[in-house]
C-alpha cells in the first residue's frame, strides 16, 4: 500500500515537475521577501494614518499626520535638502566619467591606480562621514589650510546652516564618484575600437569624439550610474547621522533622517508621523523605480 502511494507521488512529481519546480525554488525567497519587504510597505501606509508611540494603543486619525506635515517647517527643510542632494549628487556622473577617462590608459601600474581611486567606495559611509567631519573640523582639519592657499576661509563648514548640507554632499560624492568611475571604466573597456579608429580617420577627436562616438556607446553605464546615484542620494542617512545629527538647528536633515528622528529618538516615538514621512519619501522614489522597471520591461520584450 505504502509502496503504491510512493510511486503515485513520484508519478505526480514526474508529471508536474516542470510546473511545480519554479514555485518550489521560489517559495523560501518569496516568503522572506514578502514578510520583510513587501508587507511592511503596505503596513507603513496604514500606520501613517494612526497616532502610535510604538507600544501602546494605535489611534486612527485619518490624514491628520499628512496635514501636520504640510505645516511642518522641518519637513520643508528636509525636502529642500533632498532636492539639493538629488541635483548635486548627479555630479558624481560627470566626475566619475572624467576620472575614468583620465585613468583609461595602459601605462605601468595603472591597475593599482584604478583600485586605489575606487576604494573610497568600499569604505563604510560611517567612516567616510567621520573622515570628512575631521577633514572639515576648523581646529584639526586639513580643509581650512587648503582653501587658505587660495586666500579663502577659514570657515566652519559643518557648523554653518548655509554650508552644512553642501559639505555633507561633497563627502557623499567622494565614494559615489568612485562608483561611477568604475562603471565607466568597464564601459570604456567595451567601446568598439574599430569605431574609434574609423572616427579618428574621419578627423574626430577630443570633445566631438567623446560626445558623438564614445558617449553613445557608454549609454548602459550611464543608465546604471544615474539609477544608483539617484537612489544613493535619496538614501543618504549614514553620513548625516554621523557628521551632524541633522544639525545645526536641523538644517542638514533630509527626509530619510527626519523620519528616523521623529520615530526613534528623543523627539518622541511618533511612529505614525514617521511613517507618513516615509510614505512621501517612498512616493518620490517610486517615480524612479517605475522608470527603471519600465525600461527593463521594454528590454525584456525584445528578449
Amino acid at each position: 500500500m505504502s509502496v503504491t502511494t510512493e510511486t503515485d507521488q513520484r508519478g505526480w512529481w514526474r508529471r508536474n515537475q516542470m510546473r511545480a519546480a519554479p514555485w518550489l525554488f521560489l517559495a523560501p525567497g518569496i516568503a522572506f521577501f514578502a514578510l520583510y519587504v513587501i508587507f511592511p510597505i503596505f503596513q507603513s501606509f496604514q500606520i501613517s494614518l494612526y497616532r502610535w508611540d510604538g507600544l501602546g494603543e494605535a489611534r486612527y486619525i485619518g490624514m491628520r499626520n499628512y496635514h501636520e506635515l504640510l505645516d511642518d517647517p522641518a519637513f520643508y527643510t528636509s525636502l529642500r535638502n533632498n532636492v539639493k542632494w538629488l541635483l548635486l549628487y548627479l555630479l558624481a556622473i560627470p566626475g566619475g566619467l572624467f576620472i575614468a577617462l583620465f585613468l583609461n590608459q595602459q601605462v605601468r601600474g595603472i591597475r593599482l591606480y584604478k583600485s586605489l581611486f575606487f576604494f573610497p567606495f568600499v569604505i563604510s559611509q560611517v567612516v567616510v562621514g567621520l573622515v570628512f567631519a575631521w577633514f572639515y573640523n576648523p581646529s584639526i582639519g586639513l580643509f581650512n589650510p587648503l582653501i587658505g592657499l587660495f586666500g579663502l576661509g577659514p570657515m566652519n563648514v559643518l557648523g554653518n546652516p548655509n554650508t552644512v548640507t553642501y559639505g555633507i554632499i561633497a563627502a557623499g560624492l567622494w565614494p559615489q564618484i568612485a562608483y561611477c568611475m568604475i562603471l565607466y571604466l568597464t564601459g570604456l573597456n567595451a567601446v568598439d575600437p574599430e569605431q574609434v579608429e574609423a572616427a579618428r580617420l574621419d578627423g574626430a577627436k577630443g570633445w566631438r569624439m567623446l560626445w558623438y562616438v564614445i558617449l553613445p556607446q557608454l549609454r548602459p553605464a550611464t543608465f546604471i550610474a544615474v539609477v544608483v546615484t539617484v537612489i544613493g542620494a535619496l538614501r543618504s542617512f549614514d553620513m548625516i547621522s554621523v557628521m551632524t545629527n541633522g544639525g545645526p538647528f536641523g538644517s542638514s536633515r533630509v527626509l530619510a533622517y527626519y523620519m528616523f528622528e521623529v520615530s526613534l529618538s528623543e523627539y518622541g516615538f511618533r511612529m505614525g508621523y514617521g511613517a507618513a514621512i516615509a510614505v512621501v519619501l517612498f512616493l518620490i522614489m517610486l517615480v524612479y523605480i517605475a522608470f527603471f522597471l519600465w525600461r527593463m520591461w521594454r528590454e525584456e520584450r525584445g528578449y
Partner: protein
Amino acid sequence: MFPTPVERRSNAVQTTYKALLPLALILWLMPLLMVALFSIKPDSDFTQGNLWGWPSSFVGFENYTRVFTDSAMPRYLLNSVFITVPTVIGAVALSCMTGFALGVYRFRSNIWIFFMFVAGNFVPFQILMVPVRDLTLNLGLYDTRLGLVLFHIAFQTGFCTLFMRNFIRALPRELIEAARVEGVSEIRIFWYVVLPLMRPAIAALSVLIFTFIWNDYFWAVVLTQGVETQPVTAGITAFNSQFRAAYHMMSAGSIIAALPPVMMFFLMQKHFIAGLTLGAVK
C-alpha cells in the same frame, strides 16, 4: 581606445601623465591620508599643534593595539562577522534558487515576480523601518544578531535575485534541455548542472553582499543596541565617545572598522568589480 593612449603621444605628454597620476591620487585620497597620519601620531602632537607635520614619534603600533585592548572594538568586530557571514550565506542560497526559477522557467507570473524583487530592492529603508522593527520586536528578536541577519537576508534577496537571474539567463540553455531529455529531474538539474556554472556569480555576489552588510549602519541602529549585538559601524560611535577628542585613537579605530571590506576588495577585486558593473556594458 579612447582617449588616445599616451604611448602614441609625445614624450612630454607621457612624462606629464606619469607625473600627474600619483599627484592626482594623493589629492583624491587626501582626507584618508590625513586620518592615516593621525593614527600613527602620539597624543602630544595634537596638543602641541603638530597636526600635519612629521609625527614626533611613531606610535602607530601602540595606538592600534590600544584599539583592541582598551575598548569594545574586538567585540563589535566579532558581531559584524557574525552578522555579515550568515547573511551572505543566506542571501546567496535563497537567490540561487529564486534566480534559477526565474531564469530557467517560463511561466506567466515570472516577470511580475521578478519585478517585485527588483522594485523591492530599490525602496527607501524608511518605509520598512517601523513595521520591520515592530515585527522583530514581536518575534522576540529585537537587539539580537539573528533579528538583524533575518532582515538583511530578506532584503538582499531582492538584489541577489536580480543578479542571479540575469546571470542564469546568459548561460547556454542547451545544457539544461539536454539534461531534461535524459530524464534528469529539475532538482538535480539545479544542483548538478546549473549550480556549478554559477560559481563566478556566487563569488561576485558574496563579496558584494559582504561589503554591503558590513557597511550597514541604518539597520544596525534600528534593530540593535549595545555592545552585545551591534556591529562595528554602530559601535564606532560608542568608541568615539569613549575616546572623545583623542584623534589619534579615533583615527586608528575608524581605520580598523573600515579595513575588512577593503581587504575583501583587494583580495577579490576581479569578482567585486564583475559584480558591481553587471549591466554596465550591453
